[in-house]
């Protein structure tokens, strides 16, 4: 059994609609990166695969690259490109 951290993951816009929930608690192996989170989400929510290249990540409310390594306690969020203004 691998050691894991549990992360709160928020969804917005069509990511939220594809997931069917506003947020999840997701356990990922210690040392996991954003890419690991993305692979997990595409697995759990296959509807996201269609536009997987559009997905963006925020860590602790700042935009982040998918390659970033996650830290226990991080607030994660996944969403499409922003369209405000």
């Amino acid at each position, binding site marked *: 059994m691998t050691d894991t951290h549990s992360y709160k993951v*928020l969804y*917005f*816009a*069509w990511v*939220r609609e594809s997931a069917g929930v506003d947020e999840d608690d997701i356990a990922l192996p210690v040392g996991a990166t954003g890419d690991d989170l993305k692979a997990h989400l595409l697995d759990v929510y296959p509807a996201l695969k269609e536009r997987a290249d559009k997905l963006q990540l*925020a860590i602790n*409310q*700042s*935009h982040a690259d998918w390659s970033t390594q996650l830290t226990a306690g991080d607030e994660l*969020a996944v*969403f*499409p*490109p*922003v*369209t*405000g*203004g």
Partner: protein
Amino acid sequence: MFSVRVQEADFDIKADMAASLHDEAGIGAVVTFNGVVRPEVNGKVLKTMTLEHYPGMAEQQLRALLEEARTRWPLDAGLIIHRYGRLYPGDNIVLVVTASKHRHAAFEAAEFLMDWLKTKAPFWKKEELADSGPHWVEERATDLAATDRWS
């Protein structure tokens, strides 16, 4: 004064400008940008739109934008208000106010804030057109290009 607000309620351009500029003695130039819901999208009538946002991150990003603008231009005051929720054609969406002794600084800072806001602030528009179901607005290549020119 420098401040940001994310709110469902409408804003009052005059009152919010005045509050933002209160006690700023040295100001000579004030630029405002007011974004409004348009009645048409690509020639189709817009019935309504819903603005979703990421509470917390939205405010944080707007504050970061203002801070970035202050490092680039000599600003005396700055304000960003962005609404969320259900909006109709003609409704206010966003207000940006910049004030400086120098008009070009105020103009450039306001344009910079809008360009960056469009690609960095976590808001998402879902439109309902008269003749089709609701859909999420796609990001625009021109907005990305507009952001890049400040890099």
